[in-house]
């Protein structure tokens, strides 16, 4: 996924300081923004993983955030100089005197997380229906035939297949076939497994 870090702060010292701290640490493009108008250029982008470090007093309540959040995975980090304020639009707030390491860890967490997110359902058990679909996939049937055999739509078959893959952590058809054989979903006394794989 396309990843970006944006710094939105009117203080040039803070902007440059953050840039200097983050630059060597991440191989992610870091873009400094001086005012809210520059955010408008992001209204058309989508499917990015974006992290914004902002001055929450000035920028937390912009309309444009909603628009950006709809089409991207977004995290807002506020960098504030008052400990008494709460900023409900920010996902996380740091004080200006926070150790840089804490911000760096927060950023790493956000971007590392993206690599694992495809597996959030891994480990969940297959439903009875999913097992039926998996069995037919392993036997080499197309989505259309599977749909006909189970009296469901092709769309539903595809949705079952997506869930199966996420739960098992196995994506290829031949890999799913091996899983089905190892778990005795297909009877290998009747079929030679090597013909299927």
């Amino acid at each position: 996924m396309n990843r970006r870090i944006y710094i939105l702060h009117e203080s040039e010292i803070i902007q440059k300081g953050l840039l200097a701290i983050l630059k060597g640490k991440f191989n992610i493009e870091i873009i400094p923004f001086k005012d809210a108008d520059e955010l408008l250029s992001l209204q058309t982008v989508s499917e990015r993983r974006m992290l914004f470090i902002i001055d929450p007093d000035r920028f937390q309540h912009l309309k444009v955030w909603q628009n950006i959040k709809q089409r991207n995975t977004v995290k807002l980090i506020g960098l504030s100089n008052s400990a008494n304020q709460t900023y409900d639009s920010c996902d996380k707030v740091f004080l200006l005197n926070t150790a840089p390491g804490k911000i760096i860890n927060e950023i790493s967490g956000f971007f590392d997380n993206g690599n694992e997110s495809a597996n959030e359902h891994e480990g969940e058990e297959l439903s009875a229906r999913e097992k039926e679909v998996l069995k037919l996939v392993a036997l080499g049937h197309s989505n259309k035939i599977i749909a006909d055999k189970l009296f469901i739509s092709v769309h539903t078959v595809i949705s079952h297949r997506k869930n199966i893959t996420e739960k098992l952590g196995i994506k290829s058809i031949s890999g799913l076939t091996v899983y089905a054989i190892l778990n005795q979903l297909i009877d290998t006394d009747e079929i030679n497994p090597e013909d299927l794989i």
Partner: protein
Amino acid sequence: MKIFNKNDKMVTLVRANYHLLPVISRFGIRLGFKDKTIENICEENKINTDFFLAIVNTFHNENYFPEEQFLQFSPLLLVQYLRKTHRYYIEYELPKMDNLLGQLKKSCSSGCKELEVIDAFYKRYKTELLNHINDEETRVFPYVLELVNNPRSVDPNFSILEYEKEHSNVEVQINDLKNLIIKYMDPVYDENICNEFLITLFRFEIDINDHARIEDTILVPLVVSIEDKYRG
């Protein structure tokens, strides 16, 4: 993550990421670096330093995307490198995996049917990988060579974007192979051999993903820019 430059010592590169060892070997560079810089060693071996850096940085750092200034080398260098990588896979890595899987099967005394299924899956993976390599060697690379040497003679309707098929299936299968062994197979085998086999698979996966990335982020843009130049 660190981006290496020509003034870094070659030894730093290996210390930072020992997976780069076979990559360095593919350039014909042998160990015994002393304290020479990357630039020194590349010059001694008559290797284009920018090219070397583009390759090792792409390998070391999956988010690295070489900037245009570092892409001023000929695609022929790249094809030569990719061919060497293919040979390394065919002559060294695949036989190593074959051998470990053979040992693993021998180490199983009873209930070995599952290993046979895994073996069949591995063979399937290997066949697809070899087909993919063969496709590049016989279709993609000759096209690139022809485009560089005789740009006006190639069919203007073809583009590298069509030639360069997706690598995804091969990448998916090696990942599945690892998961099937780690998660779902009964451990009816010698664990040390199995660990060795898995570690080899993990390393091979890194290498082959990087290989695909080099094709996607360096070869394809280089070739597309040549295509554009002649087709306007």
